Structure formats: structure tokens, C-alpha cells
């Protein structure tokens, strides 16, 4: 072991010890690991730290003259540093609608593999996410849990536009066993009625009623509430997806019949000129997409950023809007034909 080799190995060990220590200290563990495997973070930080320290001391006190690294050794060290760069490049990755579409198989098959919380549920509004998912995919099992058609439920998840989902959109949580690599998407179909379909990857708290749809159940939404992503985004054997209580201001006083909160109703705030006209053409007539979706594949944080992205030259940003409009037409929600829309768009572009 030459000194350079020893130094390279010390760097690798120290870099990984730092990664483990930082993930642990910043409480980033739940993003990557299941609840039963969180212990690897403190263990890794400690063991790798000790190894790095011992190796570093030996390398520093070595008296032999140094000679170049072998190519294999240098490659190995470099490869082991690549993931550290990846973490720095994407410090807070999330599993979203893209991962759900990629990983998802048949939702019924996935749900059949899930554990059940067991006993009958007294307060259906507090039924965990997994149980509601089981009830929607297999009503017979749902009734054993006490979740039958007509039961009021509240679920928290992220929006996916799953073509197979029988509702307006799907509300998804990922079930993880060991780490995020084995995450399985669980999707509950939500019927938002006449309300606009919210953009993908948005976290929503949905309050509604279980309604039959074909052989399955869907959640007929009475209220949609935008929220932040929860600190532990996954469901697992030890966390079935407890539902946070609805915010006090719009608590259970809300009557069942009240129309859902129109998520997309934010107008064309922030848009000017051509961007505003195009946006309005889609939004006013299709009522499906909001400015976040229009700015796809980037995600706009606010109206201003959306306007900046949307007004740019990249026409591909407008593709989701077109698809959304198509969906609106099929659902009978759009008040305009595609042909008419295109002619308006062309006119808007020329002006």
C-alpha cells in the first residue's frame, strides 16, 4: 500500500462517513430508508468514521516513499465518489408521478400484497391510507374492515394522472419495505367531479365519500386541500399512512354537498402578452391544467416562475396542456372543440 493509495482510500472512507453522518444529522433518513432500517445511518457514520480515522492516522504516519496509484485502485476510488456527487447534485430527491408510472404494475395486484391493519375501523375518517386503498381495490375486504360505500374518508397523498385509474386522478403513496429502491406505488382513484384535475406531484389532503364505480370503489372528493409533502412520505409495515387532521379553518363543518375547492382557479396571474393568451385559451376552455403543468417538465414554484418558463421559446412546455385539453374534451368538460382551439391559438400566436 503506497501512501497515495492509502490517501485515496482514506478520502473514500471519510467521504462516505460524512454522507452517513449528514443524512443522519439532517434527518434525511426517512427519504431513503424504511422505518426498520434507519439504524444503518448512525451505524454507518460511526463504523466508517472510525475506519477512516484509523486508516488516515496510519497513512499519515507511514514512512515509506510514495509511488503512483494503480489504475484499478484509482478507478475504484473514483467510482465510489460518484454517488457522493449524485447526492450533491440532487440533494432532496422525491419519488413522484413519474416513478409511480414506471414502477407501477396492476394496482389490484400490488394492493393484494399489502398488509392490513386488521380490526374494524370505528372512525372511518381516520382510516389509514393502506386500508382505504384495499377497500377501493377490493370492496369485499373493505367491508370486513368497516370501509363500505358511503363511508367518509380522508386520505393524504400525491397526485398521479394514472390512465388506468377510474377516477379523475389518482392519489398515490409509496409502500416501502427496506429502502426507497423497493418502493411500490399504491394508487387510490379519486373522483373530483366537475373540478379541474390538479397537476401531478402535488400533495393533497382529500376528504370524501367512498362510492361504487364498476366493481371497485372510488373516493368521491368533497374537499381538496393542498399541503406540503409530509416528513415521512412513504407508507410501510409500521406506518400505514395516518391521515393528518384537516386544517381547523375548513374542518368538518363543511357540508358534504359543497363543491370541491377549485385548485386550478388561479387565473393567468403573472402571465403577460402571448403567454397569457395561450394560457387562457387552454385554461378557460379546458379547465384541466394549471400553470405548474404548463411549465412542464420543470416545476414552477410560483406564478412568476411559471410565467418566465412558459413565455420562453420551448414549445414542449405546451404539450401537457394540449393533452390536458384532450382529456377535458373526452370528459365532456371542455367548452370548445380542438379545431376551434387551434385556430384561436394560431391567431393568438400571430398577434
Amino acid at each position, binding site marked *: 500500500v503506497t501512501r497515495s493509495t492509502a490517501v485515496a482510500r482514506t478520502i473514500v*472512507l471519510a467521504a462516505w462517513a460524512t454522507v452517513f453522518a449528514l443524512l443522519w444529522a439532517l434527518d434525511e433518513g426517512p427519504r431513503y430508508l*424504511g422505518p426498520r*432500517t434507519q439504524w444503518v445511518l448512525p451505524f454507518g457514520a460511526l463504523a466508517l468514521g472510525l475506519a477512516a480515522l484509523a486508516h488516515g492516522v*496510519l497513512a499519515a504516519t507511514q514512512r515509506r516513499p510514495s509511488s503512483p496509484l494503480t489504475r484499478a485502485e484509482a478507478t475504484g476510488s473514483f467510482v*465510489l465518489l460518484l454517488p457522493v456527487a449524485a447526492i450533491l447534485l440532487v440533494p432532496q430527491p422525491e419519488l413522484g408521478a413519474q416513478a409511480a408510472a414506471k414502477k407501477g404494475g396492476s394496482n389490484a395486484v400490488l394492493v393484494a400484497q399489502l398488509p392490513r391493519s386488521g380490526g374494524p375501523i370505528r372512525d372511518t375518517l381516520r382510516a389509514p391510507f393502506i386500508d382505504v386503498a384495499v377497500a377501493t381495490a377490493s370492496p369485499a375486504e373493505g367491508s370486513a374492515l368497516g370501509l363500505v360505500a358511503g363511508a367518509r374518508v380522508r386520505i393524504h397523498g400525491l397526485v398521479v394522472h394514472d390512465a388506468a385509474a377510474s377516477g379523475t386522478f389518482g392519489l398515490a403513496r409509496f409502500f416501502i419495505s427496506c429502502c426507497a*429502491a423497493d418502493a411500490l406505488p399504491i394508487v387510490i382513484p379519486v373522483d373530483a367531479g366537475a373540478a379541474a384535475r390538479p397537476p401531478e406531484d402535488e400533495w393533497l389532503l382529500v376528504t370524501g365519500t367512498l362510492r361504487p364505480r364498476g366493481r371497485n370503489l372510488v373516493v368521491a372528493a368533497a374537499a381538496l386541500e393542498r399541503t406540503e409533502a409530509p416528513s415521512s412520505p412513504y407508507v410501510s409495515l409500521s406506518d400505514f399512512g395516518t391521515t393528518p387532521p384537516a386544517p381547523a379553518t375548513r374542518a368538518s363543518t363543511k357540508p358534504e354537498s359543497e363543491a370541491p375547492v377549485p385548485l386550478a382557479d388561479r387565473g393567468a396571474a403573472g402571465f403577460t402578452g402571448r403567454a397569457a393568451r395561450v394560457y387562457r385559451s387552454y385554461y378557460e376552455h379546458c379547465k384541466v391544467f394549471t400553470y405548474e403543468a404548463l411549465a412542464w417538465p420543470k416545476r414552477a414554484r410560483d406564478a412568476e416562475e411559471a410565467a418566465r418558463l412558459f413565455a420562453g421559446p420551448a414549445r414542449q412546455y405546451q404539450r401537457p396542456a394540449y393533452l390536458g385539453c384532450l382529456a377535458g374534451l373526452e370528459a365532456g368538460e371542455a367548452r370548445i372543440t380542438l379545431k376551434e382551439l387551434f385556430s384561436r391559438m394560431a391567431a393568438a400566436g400571430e398577434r
Partner: protein
Amino acid sequence: VSAIRQQVNGPGRPWLAAAARARRASEPLLVAGVVALLAGAVVAGRSAGIGEVAEVETFVLVFVSILVEALPFILLGALVSAAIAVYVPEAFFARIGRLPVGLQLPGAAFGGLFFPVCECGSVPVARRLILRGIHPSAGIAFMLASPIVNPVVLASTWVAYSGRGSAAEMVLGRAAFGLGLAALVGIAIGRLAPATLLRPRPSSVEPHDHAGCASPWTRRGRGAEFVAHLAADFVFMGKFIVLGAAAAAAIQSVVPQDIVAGIAGSPVLAALALMGLAFALSLCSQADAFVAASLTSFTPGAQLAFLVFGPMADTKLVLLYGGTFRQQFALRLIVIAVPFLVVASLVFDALLT
């Protein structure tokens, strides 16, 4: 080395000395350059908003989560194998060689329970065992079984599957099929005499030469040697798990779902595909369960084939076998293992449902 260096640096050859100095000086520069390059790539990538692309997010999340899960186990394995390499005397193994073959074969297969060595460590150990008079069948059975039936590997398999309620089945299945296949191959190939089985000369691919473990720190005591072994093993095995995690992450984020689903849909094809993947990835058996568990589109049987085949045959092992045994050992092993594991994976899936 220092004598040669003195010769080189001697009077009359100042340019050589300068070249040597330049080379020594350039190495830290190279390291700094590589680090700067990585840092530059990170800064450029972040300003370009690469982290906002959903595929990249999924890739990084899957990639990092497998590594965070697996690296502590790699370190644990390196710890044990370094301890065996440094502290267990070889005379210990010789004593086992005096037992009858009927006892040796199962004894050797189960021996892995008490010798948690990784697969690259078990090959030279088996060679040493056979040379010291242990029956070749027993030696081969030990070599193939110990990377599967050892406490660190079974523990990591348990952890990887514990969240899904199938941990016991996977651990038992892995141990049972691993032991069965190891014994089968041991009986089939080990009938050959040691002289026709092993390569005649001591091979250049020795225990941890590949990991650069021939330590000059020996004179500084066993503790120092232990730490050197540990770090060498960590870097050597770590790079394979990085590549394996990248492949698993790519399957989950970039490879079209139709292709994966098409292969995963056919049980025989799925088992064959995952064995091929295990061969190509060359994962360390202490961490491969985390990659296998992430391949959720495939049946548990196909994942089991991945977990049993990988520790017995992969790219790095074929190189090691080539340096240890006569030709065709690896080929014979694969010819026996592949059909066995295809059937085993079908049986396992049938038992689970």
C-alpha cells in the same frame, strides 16, 4: 524499491530524478483535478436544473438508497474477512482435512455459517483447503456455499426483505438452494483428483492481491494490517455495488417499463434474465439482497435465482476461477447451476403461493 530509486536518482541522471519528482508531485494534482471536475459537474448540473427532471430524481433516490443500505454491510463483511485473513491461523483448516469425506462435505457446506468470507475470499481459501488435503468435493462445496450461508449475508437478506413479510422465506430459500447447489456441484466436479482440478502453479490471483492487500504495514503490527485489509476490501467490493446500484436504478427510472414487464412476465425468462444480471453486476453477496429486493417487477423465485447464482458465478469470480482451477471449471459450474436454479425458482414461486 528505494535502492532502485537511489540508482535512478544518482548523479549524472538529474532529468530522471526530476521526472520522478514531477510524477510524485503530479499525483496530488491529479486527485485535486478529479475532485474539481466532480465539483464542477455538480455545480453545472445544479444550475442547469437537472435535479428537477423526474427521471433523474428517481434514479438518484433509488441509487443512493441502495448504497446507504448496502455499504454498512460491505464494511461489516470487510471487517470479518480482514479479521480472518489476519487473525485465524491456516493450521486450523488443516485439522478439518483429516475427517472422512462423508462428514467433510456437509461440514464444509455448513462451514460457511462460521466463516463469513466474501466470495472473492472463499476462492483462495478453498484452494488452500484442497491443497492441504481436504477432499475436493468438500473444498468446492465450501467455496460455493460460504458466500451464501454466512451470518452477514443471511442478516442482510433478512433486512432487505423484512418490510414485506417474506424475510423468513427468502432467507430459508436462499440458504437451502445455496447449500443444495453447492453440494451438487461439489459432488459432480470434485471427483477429479486435486492435481487435475487445480492449476499446477500457485496462481498470481491470490487472496486479496486484487484488492491491493499485500500490506507493507505488516511490521507495524496486526492492527495496522487489519485496517489496511479492511479499507482495501471496502474499496474493492464497494465499486461493484455502486455499479450494481446504478444498474438497478436505471431499470427503475430509465429503461422502458414494457421491456422490464415483458421479461418479468415469463417465469423462466425472468429467472434467466436475473441470473444474467447477477453475472454481469458482480455484486458482493453481503449487499446483493438490496438490489434483488428492489427488482419488484420480478417474482420472488426469479429474485432468489439472482441471490443464489450471483455469489457462485459472476464476472469477477470467473476471473478468479480461471486463476485457481483448470479450464472449464466455471463452464461446468454454470451448466449445472442454470437449469438447477430455473427449476428452483419455479418451485419457490409455487411454494409461496
